[in-house]
């Protein structure tokens, strides 16, 4: 009993010590919540790396409002509870006036109420759930796309151009997968196509032979695949192994082509269509030079890592925030929130400006993998 109390006392004093350790800083702090550990760590780190490039660039130009900016990064583990903790830490300990994050939709949805209650704006960089901006929150701005926008954009191409008349869906059984199925199905149906089959899979599933066998006998002429990188690559690999290469295959939501080629193999990925957001080979028109500069800098700093959309969104996100702070003329949460409404940035990921739901319309495209290399098929906007 005595020993236990001893430990409790030690722990409590650690808490108290920990509380007092926050000191004043000159720089303007920007909070970032990303998964730095766990299965999503690779992507989360990409966002942070992109953000760091923007930080360097901005500080090299003299910062904003005459001050340097400083990123304060917390690990949200792509988990709601952890992300909320991270948000609280950033808001209370570091008193950041704005946060970018929290990568996963579930984590972002959990962080949103905290932002509202602390009256601090959140810039959402990668979370695609519709619920993030619908219903809109005055404290939440999003620079990445959502499934409703994607579905709308794809309507013009999916059936008419790409010929997805009898589509089958293979989607992750989560908010993201289900939202894509809903809106892309609409896009198919509106142009006279039919959805033959929808197969949901659990996260982490590896064996798709049963679903693919079902699809092969269903008469589908195309498969729309929505999942994470490894699962999508696995599905592509298995479509090939099941001899389903005559069926058109489309991978949604910016899964990088190089990863598909690397994981599924050159043979299996031949002819696969990929729905991209930012991609290195096809930046939005007018951004080519800026894009090359970004790629060069990134490759110089992180030589072993290919540039991906997460880095680009991280980079753009910080630029948007810096721009908003300049417009606000103060590192004040409420002023930054107001400023974000008016902020316009010609970003790598598209021309960023927010609509009445605080949603930007990022650029997207469709490319086809030929002999292991992606070729641009169509720019969507």
């Amino acid at each position, binding site marked *: 009993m005595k020993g236990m109390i001893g430990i409790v006392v030690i722990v409590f004093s650690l808490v108290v010590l920990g509380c007092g350790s926050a000191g004043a800083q000159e720089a303007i702090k920007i909070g970032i919540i990303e998964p730095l550990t766990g299965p999503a760590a*690779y992507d989360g780190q990409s966002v942070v790396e992109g953000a760091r490039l923007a930080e360097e660039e901005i500080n090299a130009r003299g910062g904003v409002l005459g001050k340097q900016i400083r990123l304060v990064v917390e690990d949200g583990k792509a988990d709601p509870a952890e992300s909320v903790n991270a948000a609280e830490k950033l808001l209370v300990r570091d008193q950041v006036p704005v946060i970018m994050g929290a990568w996963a939709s579930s984590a972002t949805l959990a962080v949103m109420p905290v932002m509202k209650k602390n009256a601090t704006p959140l810039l959402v960089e990668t979370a695609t759930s519709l619920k993030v901006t619908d219903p809109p929150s005055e404290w939440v701005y999003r620079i990445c796309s959502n499934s409703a926008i994607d579905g709308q954009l794809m309507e013009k191409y999916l059936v008419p151009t790409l010929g997805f008349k009898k589509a089958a869906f293979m989607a992750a059984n989560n908010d993201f997968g289900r939202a894509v199925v809903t809106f892309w199905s609409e896009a198919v149906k509106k142009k006279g196509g039919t959805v033959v089959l929808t197969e949901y899979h659990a996260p982490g599933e590896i*064996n798709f032979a049963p679903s693919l066998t079902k699809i092969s006998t269903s008469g589908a002429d195309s498969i729309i695949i929505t999942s994470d990188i490894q699962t999508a*690559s*696995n599905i592509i690999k298995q479509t090939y192994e099941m001899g389903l290469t005559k069926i058109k295959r489309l991978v949604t939501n910016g899964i990088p082509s190089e*990863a598909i080629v*690397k994981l599924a193999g050159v*043979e299996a990925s031949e002819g696969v269509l990929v729905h991209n957001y930012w991609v290195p080979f096809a930046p939005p028109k007018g951004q080519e030079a800026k894009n090359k500069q970004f790629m060069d800098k990134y490759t110089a700093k992180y030589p072993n890592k290919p540039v991906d959309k997460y880095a680009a969104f991280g980079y753009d996100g910080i630029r948007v925030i810096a721009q908003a702070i300049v417009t606000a003329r103060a590192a004040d949460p409420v002023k930054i929130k107001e400023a974000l409404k008016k902020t316009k940035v010609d970003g790598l990921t598209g021309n960023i400006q927010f609509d009445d739901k605080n949603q930007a319309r990022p650029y997207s495209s469709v490319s086809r993998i030929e002999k292991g290399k992606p070729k641009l098929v169509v720019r969507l906007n």
Partner: protein
Amino acid sequence: MLTEVLQQVINGLVMGSTYALTAVGLTMIFGMMRVVNFTHGEFYMLGGFFAFQLTASLHLNYYVSVVVAILAVMAVGFVCERVLLAPLRGKSIDTTVLVTIGLSIFLQNLALLWWGPTPKSIPLPFSNTPLQWGPVVLTWSRILAVSITFGLIVLVHLLIQKSLLGKAMRATFQEKDAALLAGVDVERIYAFTFTLGAGLAAGAGVLLGSIFLIYPSMGNIAILKAFIVVILGGMGNFIGAICGGLILGVTEGLGAGFVSSGYKDAIGFVLVILILMFRPSGLFGKARRL
């Protein structure tokens, strides 16, 4: 319809045989040592990563890599057994379970630090183009996986049935004290069993890793499946594990194909609960009190 059934059954048998390979090692460790080994999934994962490292980075021949990877994991298994499980021999089962869970977390996160979270794919020495036999499609890697699986299983079976070591293993399994009296070095048998079990898990990891992808958390789903199979076949039942693996593979295939893929994984868990409640010694075991 018939071709679809046939294809689904074949899919199921391919998956099922690798389930069986993973489960055989697990069931052996359980039957012999009464240890529920949660580290099994990590041995499976390490098998895949070692093979990847050998083929992709050191450019070793694929088949050589498979063997070396299995041996390497066996070495890891041996060390774990000696250092962590041997001191706990005869102690509460709960403690050993928690230790293997701790080890599983440790190894998985070590792999995450070492190889990173991005999935890897093992380069294969042959083209994986589909082979069409009438209505049925298969690939060389799957045929290879099934053949190696059954090769390994037969090998282990012969080892247990024919060799002196196998006889000692069976004696230890049936009556530990009697085996001790008969001069069997039970400690050595335990170490060997655990090492062999780890090797079988690694074999499954290499083979499935060649068909699918390799990533640090790949053991999580593998061990769940292996547990299901072990319970289906009866804990400690070698033949039961093989049949259980095939049954699970085929039911999953047919269930996903003709019921709903959403409930594919649920099928296994329902089977487990039913078996535990009504036939705890497994489908093939003699009914006995637990």
